[in-house]
């Protein structure tokens, strides 16, 4: 068997498993008919769309099998940070004391999905939204810009997330 063929089979299998997990979560039933129907449907969809779900050069094992324990910790941290950030935005809006600014820094994460999750987390959490993600350059609008220095801004905005994300997805 050619190695390309084997890699394609692995891609199809990975896509099928991910889609099937989504199906089971959504239908929330363990009736055998539903499960079988989900398996058929997810393999059909996987056959059609495996070239986009798993890119040809996206071969690192870690980017498909995240470390679940860190992921759970990360999600909890994210939701907690979201509430804290909302209270801070609330306070700033009520007081009317905002000092918006635009900062730029570079991220150190390597994989696509980790960068996207980082962007999402930055947009969700502490008074910041990502304006542009160009490869590893991030331009961030900050509601309470305490600095415009690139490295210091990275320390304040992105470092707590990156430390965990590096363990989850590389």
């Amino acid at each position: 068997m050619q190695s390309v063929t084997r890699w394609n089979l692995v891609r199809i299998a990975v896509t099928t498993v991910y889609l099937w997990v989504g199906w089971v979560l959504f239908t929330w039933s363990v009736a055998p008919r539903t499960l079988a129907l989900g398996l058929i449907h997810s393999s059909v969809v996987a056959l059609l769309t495996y070239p986009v779900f798993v890119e040809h050069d996206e071969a690192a094992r870690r980017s498909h099998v995240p470390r679940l324990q860190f992921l759970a910790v990360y999600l909890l941290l994210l939701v907690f940070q979201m509430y804290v950030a909302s209270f801070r935005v609330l306070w700033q809006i009520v007081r009317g004391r905002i000092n918006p600014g635009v900062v730029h820094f570079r991220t150190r994460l390597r994989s696509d999905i980790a960068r996207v999750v980082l962007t999402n987390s930055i947009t969700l959490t502490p008074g910041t939204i990502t304006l542009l993600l160009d490869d590893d350059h991030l331009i961030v609008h900050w509601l309470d810009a305490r600095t415009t220095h690139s490295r210091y801004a990275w320390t304040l905005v992105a470092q707590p997330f990156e430390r965990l994300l590096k363990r989850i997805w590389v």
Partner: protein
Amino acid sequence: MTIAAIVFLGLGVVFGVIGNLGVLILPDVYTRLQASSTASTTSVFSALVAAMLTVGWHPMTGKIAVIALFFFVTSPIAAHIIARYAWQREIVPWRRSFAERRQLREHHDD
């Protein structure tokens, strides 16, 4: 369970009010997007969590969880897309004047 649901609904109401207020009174697109993406997302997410707590262990739980997950992924991305649109259209961010900023910083240091 019911108490927790009511608490989450209350949080949702508070953040909804603040998000609307922010979107109405803040000065420019980016700051309004801040209010929208942070406060409003938190508000709707709280409502979804409250719904999940209300139904308990039920076929609806999985569907609401999927909706919450989907919302959690797409809402920041929609905000990012709008912000990128504004940034690429060269809408200049609003800033405080230099004197006001210095005053603000001195106030911070106190």
